[in-house]
């Protein structure tokens, strides 16, 4: 479980996050949704330690992340798996080496054990016979799946996904969503997904946090989001012709 308490962040005079507090629950897919510029990426970056908030606290299973010394933060980071928007696969490494990277850095597994784990993770994301390919030789959807495989290779307790469906066709996006959802339940991970894709929201939104102009505006789940009276949330959810027609 990740406890976010009163997070504030400003860039110059512009306050991006205003006293955001929420809980990301274990074994659930926790979504952060909102329009572009609402602060969802900054909130996620605060959680994974890439941006230092001006105030507030973030605890990972009762461990206050922000108050820890860098060395102790590193221990928590080793328990995180992060899926970046573009995949962030290492260009100079093959698919196999990318997935093996966290194992090389943080485990004392034998080469055979590492290879077994890599193959297991790649199979888990429905990828086979791609071990020796480089990231430039695979498609966008495959890149995301390799990035997921890398993120789960070291058995993380927390999985963060930044716009996992960006740049993917709806079919592939659904596969990625389903995969993240299955992995979350299977390994009882605290998963946080940053998205503005309404398909994802309705498919895997077990807990949804709606950010509006840097504030946590609404919290709910995929069953309640379509029936809320919250005006700003409705503007966001029913912003496309398709969703407006569905509503009717």
């Amino acid at each position: 479980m990740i406890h976010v308490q009163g997070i504030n962040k400003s860039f110059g005079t512009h306050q991006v996050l205003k006293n955001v507090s929420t809980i990301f629950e274990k074994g659930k897919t926790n979504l952060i949704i909102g329009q572009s510029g609402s602060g969802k990426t900054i909130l996620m970056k605060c959680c994974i330690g890439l941006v230092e908030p001006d105030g507030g606290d973030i605890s990972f299973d009762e461990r206050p992340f922000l108050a820890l010394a860098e060395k102790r933060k590193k221990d928590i980071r080793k328990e995180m798996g992060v899926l970046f928007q573009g995949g962030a696969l290492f260009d100079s490494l093959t698919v196999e080496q990318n997935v093996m990277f966290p194992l090389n850095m943080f485990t004392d597994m034998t080469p055979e054990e590492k290879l077994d784990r890599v193959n297991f993770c790649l199979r888990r994301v429905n990828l086979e016979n791609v071990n020796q390919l480089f990231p430039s030789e695979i498609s966008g959807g495959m890149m995301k799946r390799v990035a997921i495989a890398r993120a789960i290779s070291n058995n993380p307790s927390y999985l963060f996904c930044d716009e996992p469906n960006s740049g993917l066709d709806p079919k592939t996006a659904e596969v990625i969503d389903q995969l993240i959802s299955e992995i979350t339940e299977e390994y009882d991970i605290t998963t946080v997904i940053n998205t503005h894709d309404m398909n994802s929201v309705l498919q895997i939104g077990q807990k949804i946090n709606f950010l509006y102009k840097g504030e946590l505006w609404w919290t709910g789940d995929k069953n309640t989001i379509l029936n809320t009276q919250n005006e700003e949330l409705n503007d966001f959810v029913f912003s496309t012709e398709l969703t407006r027609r569905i509503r009717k």
Partner: protein
Amino acid sequence: MLKLLGEYLLLLYDIFKRPDKGPVFRRQLLVEFVGLGVDSIGIVAIISVFTGAIVAIQTAYNIDSPLIPLTMVGFTTRQMMILEFSPTIISLILAGKVGSRIASEIGTMRVTEQIDALRVMGVNPANYLILPKITASMLFNPVLIIFSIVVGIWGGWFACLVTGLVTSADFIAGLRGWFEPFTVGYAMIKTVVFAFIIASVSGFLGYNVDGGSVEVGKASTKAVVVSSILIIFFDLILTQLLLV
């Protein structure tokens, strides 16, 4: 300027921390030996052969007085290659080739979030990415410079042989005369300092790229310019300290 220097020193502090995993560092080091060192042998060889040949021909051409023996051609070629051409000119060439490569490689990793990915995993990105490059440069560049000196002198000898300006015996006699071993030490000290400048400055500029591909290109160019200026500046300081 002071802020930049502070950021550079802070990055160096991160770079010179103990590597997260020894075997991974050693493997990275081998990769960098090939990428930064072995891959530069070709250009070093070509430039050194021609530089040595040109120095030899120009020296021979400028010896008009019968009081100056032609053995001076071999002597001058050797001294020029050891003292200045190999350590400084080759380091300037490497600043262009290796420096731009380091800055663009690390800069691209920055803009594509690969450095963020490393950091989030709990890896020290500065240490993982830049330390092997600095170490490989500081260990391999002296090898390249010795190679350059040897090849440059061979180029001078070969040029004399082909043009007939100086006999092989005269050239070799000059080459073997008045040799001061410290000159090689001086060349090696300069090389190691220049290697550190090239790898650390280029790494710093790549690491701090903010933006997209345009900024990566700018960082790459800046790495070459700043490294070259620092090489010349430290050349003067080291020469003053070590030779005068």
